[in-house]
């Protein structure tokens, strides 16, 4: 068998790698997305006091620390069976939605959006935030930077710190919100709504009004029929901070609507030897691997899950966009993977409107922000909708509140089988037997996973995957046929024999 090597630099950056296997005709037979990281939080959370979970688990990811902070705090509330005061809930929801809005903005302008705004076949060196600014004007750059700063200011006001906030404690929040801070928060809320609306207008003008990009969104390469998952309120509207988990099948029919603490009845995770990341699936349908022939056990969560598994949005502007979304696609659920981007902006708008709503809630500045737990601690599940999908923290403690067992299922993990499926579908459609693997093909495959805004840092409780990526193609005998590597800035390198020097095989 031909020796191949993994170039060390791709392992250096390669927190995600795609391996494609070709059949005799040169068509894609199998595709694997390999995740090489693991830190093992579930073990070392054992023995730690449950009130420390919001701080310790936030270190799973420095990109979305608020998501882990909130999920852990809610799980700890549940462990102590304590109901938090209204003002604390308003403040937590405000902080959480501000984080969601800011995180989605980053993805749209810096990570996923450039493919559309600059164009999928623009030179790779232009498909980045700089290209976006050139396309839509420098004024926007200032607005994007401001959006990011405002988001951090909310984290600082309500969580004490910009990165790894500390404000949520079992039973509420650590400190009341001052009247002065509330004034700032109202200004920020108003700005976020304005920013989100403008982002949707940009998406409309540049993507939806362009027939070529619409065709791309609707193409077979980016179409998979799966189940969808959303965290919803009593009216089945997406609620990132709290609610029930609603699951719909590929036809849009409700499969189950469960309380997050019952997740073990509905969700299970498969293990494969070739990746440190597990593959969750709907337990009632069983695990059937990753293929289009049988994909009903595979779930999609995050923005596309939220919009498909809900019956409308909580806020008026987001609701109008929601209606336009389904009118445009002509049905529900929408199975087009690239629709994630539009759904993400709709979720961003709702989050911004909720920041505005909570900042104007007069309960926000009440000094009653803590309930001291009195119950005997035992077990709790905390669930939020993180920017990349449902996030579940589950702790079992002893009578003294010391964690005995912890289980974490994060957004990108829930999505992992679906990402595999989407990557394989795109590869099969885009890689033509016998033809050279070109940059547009490579980028086309990447667009399938980029739609999910995946964070393999969270998923493996390891590194964030803002990821550069390597695609290697193998012939039927397992020989390396070729490949391409995309660097962090989108620049590309051919992988050929020159790169292969002494490896494992």
């Amino acid at each position, binding site marked *: 068998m031909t020796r191949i090597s993994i170039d060390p630099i791709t392992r250096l950056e390669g927190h995600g790698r795609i391996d494609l296997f070709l059949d005799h005709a040169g068509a894609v037979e199998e595709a694997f997305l390999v995740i090489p990281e693991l830190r093992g939080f579930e073990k070392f959370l054992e023995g730690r*006091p449950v009130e420390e979970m919001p701080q310790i688990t936030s270190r799973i990811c420095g990109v979305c620390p608020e998501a882990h902070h909130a999920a852990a705090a809610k799980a700890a509330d549940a462990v102590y069976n304590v109901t938090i005061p209204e003002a604390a809930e308003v403040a937590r929801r405000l902080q959480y939605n501000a984080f969601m809005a800011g995180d989605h903005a980053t993805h749209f302008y810096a990570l996923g959006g450039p493919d559309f705004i600059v164009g999928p076949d623009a030179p790779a060196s232009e498909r980045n935030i700089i290209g976006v600014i050139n396309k839509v004007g420098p004024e926007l750059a200032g607005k994007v930077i401001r959006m990011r700063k405002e988001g951090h200011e909310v984290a600082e006001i309500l969580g004490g710190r910009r990165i790894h906030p500390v404000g949520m404690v079992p039973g509420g929040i650590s*400190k009341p919100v001052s009247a002065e801070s509330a004034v700032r928060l109202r200004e920020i809320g108003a700005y976020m709504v304005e920013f989100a609306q403008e982002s949707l207008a940009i998406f409309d003008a540049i993507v939806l009004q362009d027939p070529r990009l619409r065709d791309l969104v609707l193409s077979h390469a980016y179409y998979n029929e799966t189940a969808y998952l959303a965290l919803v309120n009593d009216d089945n509207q997406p609620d990132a901070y709290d609610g029930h988990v609603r699951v719909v099948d590929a036809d849009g029919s409700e499969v189950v609507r469960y309380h997050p603490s019952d997740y073990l009845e509905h969700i299970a995770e498969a293990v494969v030897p*070739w990746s*440190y990341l597990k593959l969750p699936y709907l337990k009632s349908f069983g695990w059937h691997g990753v293929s289009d022939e049988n994909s009903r056990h595979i779930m999609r969560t995050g923005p596309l899950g939220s919009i498909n598994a809900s019956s409308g949005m909580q806020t008026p502007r987001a609701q109008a966009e929601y209606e336009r979304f389904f009118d445009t696609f002509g049905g529900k659920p929408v199975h087009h993977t690239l629709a994630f981007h539009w759904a993400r902006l709709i979720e961003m708008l709702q989050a911004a409107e909720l920041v505005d709503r909570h900042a104007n809630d007069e309960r926000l500045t009440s000094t009653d922000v803590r309930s001291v737990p009195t119950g005997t601690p035992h077990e709790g599940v905390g669930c939020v909708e993180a920017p990349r999908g449902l996030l579940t923290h589950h702790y079992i403690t002893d009578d003294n509140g010391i964690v005995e067992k912890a289980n974490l299922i994060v957004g990108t993990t829930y999505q992992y089988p679906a990402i595999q499926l989407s990557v394989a579908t795109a590869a099969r459609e885009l890689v033509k037997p016998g033809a050279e693997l070109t940059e547009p093909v490579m980028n086309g495959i990447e667009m399938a996973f980029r739609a999910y805004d995946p964070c393999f840092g969270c998923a493996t409780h390891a590194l964030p995957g803002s990821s550069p990526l390597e695609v290697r193609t193998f012939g039927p005998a397992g020989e390396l046929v070729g490949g391409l590597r995309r660097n962090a800035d989108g620049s590309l390198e051919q992988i050929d024999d020159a790169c292969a020097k002494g490896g494992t095989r």
Partner: protein
Amino acid sequence: MTKLKLGMYCAAGCGGCDISLIDVHEHLLDIVAAADIAFWPAATDFKYSDVEAMPDGEMDVCFINGAIRNTENIEIAKLLRAKSKVLVAYGACSAFGGVPGLANLYPVREVIDRAFSTQSTDPDGQRPSASATHHDGSSAGLPAITGTVHALSDIVNVDYLLPGCAPSSDRVWELCQVIVSGELPPSPAIVGATKKCVCDDCRLPKQGTRVSKFVRSHEIIAEDGRCLLEQGVVCMGPATRSGCGGQCPDALMPCRGCYGPAGDSLDVGAAMVSVLGTLVDSEDEDVIRQAISQVVDPAGTFYCFTLPTSILGRARTTDPAEEVRS
């Protein structure tokens, strides 16, 4: 004047350190004006061949964040050490092992087993490993997880430690200015922090109150304007180096020591036990011992960010690669 060459790499970290560097906001433009980013996977272009082809010492300053958790981290740390004149351990994970270092409280086999035997995981006994292959027998290319989590200085010589989880962006910007002006202190040294402790920057005043017992942060509603320790909450402020500006106590939450040991103190745990001893409102040794023994999870609390470099750190071999298990 020739521009400086800078690098930044994330090992087993969370990405928060990369964010802290980006969060110098508009100053990032000043940094780029004074220095070329030779290598920063999160933000810039580089090729492996470029890094490998660099002469030794090509980069003026390289930041490495994240702990050392697998064979890939070790390999890259050694490569970057060779290519850099000055190597900075950026952030608590790189400087002290950080939160991922808590895994050293357990054998690595248990750490891996737990990840793949949670309540929601299929009980089929499968485990990913460095020897795993795809369906055709080709290697899946997973790096091996090391037996122990290490700070960067366990693997290579480190010139400077920049503590914090994450380092405060204000301190990061100050450090960048020092680097550009060529006025780094003699190495080895801790940068982006002072020799004082968090209490020196804390806005909550001490009044000399003593306590009869210690409480956990969720058990009381802390009074604003009063030292948390004097309210019985175990706060690591007295044993922790300052640099953050006392952000956590400012939010009425106890310090957890992410800037590492203060001053010349060798061990944060010993320092904390002595602080707690003097706080107990009694001269009776048994009473004091009894009060301190009520502190839950002292290992995890005192060494939350520093276990791999503490005196509790797991026994290590001289060559970490020797104790790699896959």
